[in-house]
């Protein structure tokens, strides 16, 4: 029975396996000697460590190889994360304050619109027109609460200023002008009487 011989490439790479059995040059199964195997393994490990580092890692506090699951915490990233958290807490408080500050005006607008709707009339006897008019009145009454709720829902992740802007826009758009005009007319009448 003849002896097996390995190509030169296999013989060169084989010693990297620590404590593995390998075929010797003479083709017999042999145990790798610790001295020969360890020297090559240490050299390969140093090469791997070097390959897993970037220039300037030491200055940034990263001295461990960038292996998945063994990444050293980045102090700069930790500080940034803490800063984001603080900003988020402040933003959440601001959004909450804006919500509370605008809740009362929206409630007042809603009550005013209920009064406005009581005073409006389509002036038509047509059933379809009356149904459409009352549908419009119903939605006009709900416009304030709908705007408020939609703003709260859709600006949950937005900056506080965005929420304040949308809430302020809603208050401006939904001013109950019919009631304001009636109030002005009443004032004028009262002024002419006195």
């Amino acid at each position, binding site marked *: 029975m003849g002896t097996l011989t390995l190509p030169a490439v296999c013989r060169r790479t084989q010693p990297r396996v620590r404590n593995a059995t390998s075929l010797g040059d003479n083709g017999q199964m042999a145990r790798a000697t610790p001295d020969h195997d360890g020297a090559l393994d240490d050299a390969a490990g140093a090469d791997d460590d070097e390959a897993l580092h970037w220039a300037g890692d030491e200055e940034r506090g990263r001295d461990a190889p960038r292996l998945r699951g063994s990444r050293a915490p980045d102090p700069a990233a930790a500080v940034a994360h803490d800063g984001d958290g603080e900003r988020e807490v402040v933003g959440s408080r601001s959004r909450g304050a804006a919500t509370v500050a605008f809740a009362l005006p929206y409630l007042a607008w809603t009550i005013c619109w209920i009064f406005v709707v009581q005073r*409006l009339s389509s002036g038509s006897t047509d059933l379809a027109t009356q149904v459409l008019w009352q549908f*419009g009145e119903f939605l006009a009454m709900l416009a304030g609460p709908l705007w408020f709720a*939609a703003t709260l829902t859709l600006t949950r992740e937005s900056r506080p200023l965005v929420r304040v802007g949308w809430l302020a826009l809603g208050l401006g758009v*939904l001013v109950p002008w019919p009631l304001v005009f009636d109030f002005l007319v009443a004032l004028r009448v009262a002024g002419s009487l006195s």
Partner: protein
Amino acid sequence: MIVVAVVFAVLFGFALVSPVSELIALPGVYDAYGIGDSTPWVLLIVNVALPVVLYVAALLLGRGRPLFARALILTVALAAAFALHFELVALVGAIQPALT
């Protein structure tokens, strides 16, 4: 999404009925009372344009958002369209000259 857009297009169409009828009828009424020169054309046209503008704005604002958010924005726009219509009706009545 297309179903929601179509349903709200119909609802915004309802919001257009009253402004369009006012745009057609009010100038005649003003003429009949001899105040045809004071016809508030700008307000009447804005009254008709508002539901269309709000519908398009709501569609644009809802782009890229989930279906619920789009429907919510369209609902708010519809309610605002009706509220603004009533505001404009009140404004037209407030600036109307005294009838002779």
